[in-house]
């Protein structure tokens, strides 16, 4: 069947429905782990780290596969990652300022 997916310069073909469903299953699994560890008392000391890693993994999967950053031209990734870095820097700066992190 003919497709209407035009490849951009530096881009690759997008995945198919099976790959998307597989990614969604992984996302659902990671979400269930997030919720499960929240209720497990003996992981409390590492809870924040575990949650941040799981959240970052979910973020990466959606951005890479559903938003096609893994397959599209790298300029799009650069734009988005640039915004993300600015936002994270802003957050760290504000937290440092209000919590006197570096004093």
């Amino acid at each position: 069947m003919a497709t209407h997916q035009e490849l951009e310069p530096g881009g690759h073909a997008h995945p198919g429905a099976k790959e998307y469903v597989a990614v969604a299953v992984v996302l659902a699994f990671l979400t269930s782990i997030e919720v499960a560890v929240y209720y497990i008392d003996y992981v409390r000391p590492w809870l924040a780290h575990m949650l941040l890693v799981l959240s970052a993994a979910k973020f990466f999967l959606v951005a890479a596969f559903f938003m096609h950053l893994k397959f599209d031209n790298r300029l799009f990734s650069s734009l988005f990652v640039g915004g993300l870095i600015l936002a994270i820097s802003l957050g760290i700066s504000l937290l440092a300022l209000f919590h006197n992190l570096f004093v």
Partner: protein
Amino acid sequence: MEHAVASAHAAEHEHETSTGLDNRKLVMWAFLASDCLFFGSFISTYMIYRGRSPTGPCPHECVLNGVHYEGIFSIPYTSVSAFVLLMSSLTMVLALAAIQRGDHRGLRVWLLATALLGSVFVGGQYFEFTTFYHHGLSLSVNLFGTTFFVLTGFHGAHVTVGIIMLLSLLLTSLLGRLPASDSLTVELTGLYWHFVDVVWIVIFTVVYLLPA
């Protein structure tokens, strides 16, 4: 008539740029990058004032000035909402895959499914907000209420805008004005929708699950 069609085709090909990339897609990514800062500010503000409210209600169980407050969050409820929004990202990307292979029926089914899942999420958020309000949490009662409602409220507004975009696409498709060659329109809407999803991935972790 033929001249009009020819002009329309010519206009379609006028998007050639020095980068070889479609400007509309570049602009959407630039917008999403700027929206990162928008939500980054709100999430940072929530984290700065987290645990600094002199009075309840609190997100999780707490004691403030000798008064005990039950936690206001329902993690199982919000987990289901998060799952619903996550699955709407799947239906959105399936809608894009459908139009790219010229399957207009599939496109409409998946667009409708995405809009419905988005509506379930927004409806759930409305229920959550009203429940919190009845438990004494308002926009001005404490720092938690202010930062929580502003952050999640703006996210809910983004989801609502996304639903309107999805329904507009669905209507355009039903009117026969969304040819397979115009799949970029669906892709751009999808980018916005997935962005709203990734923002919720962060909010769900930072606001609901992360211990104070």
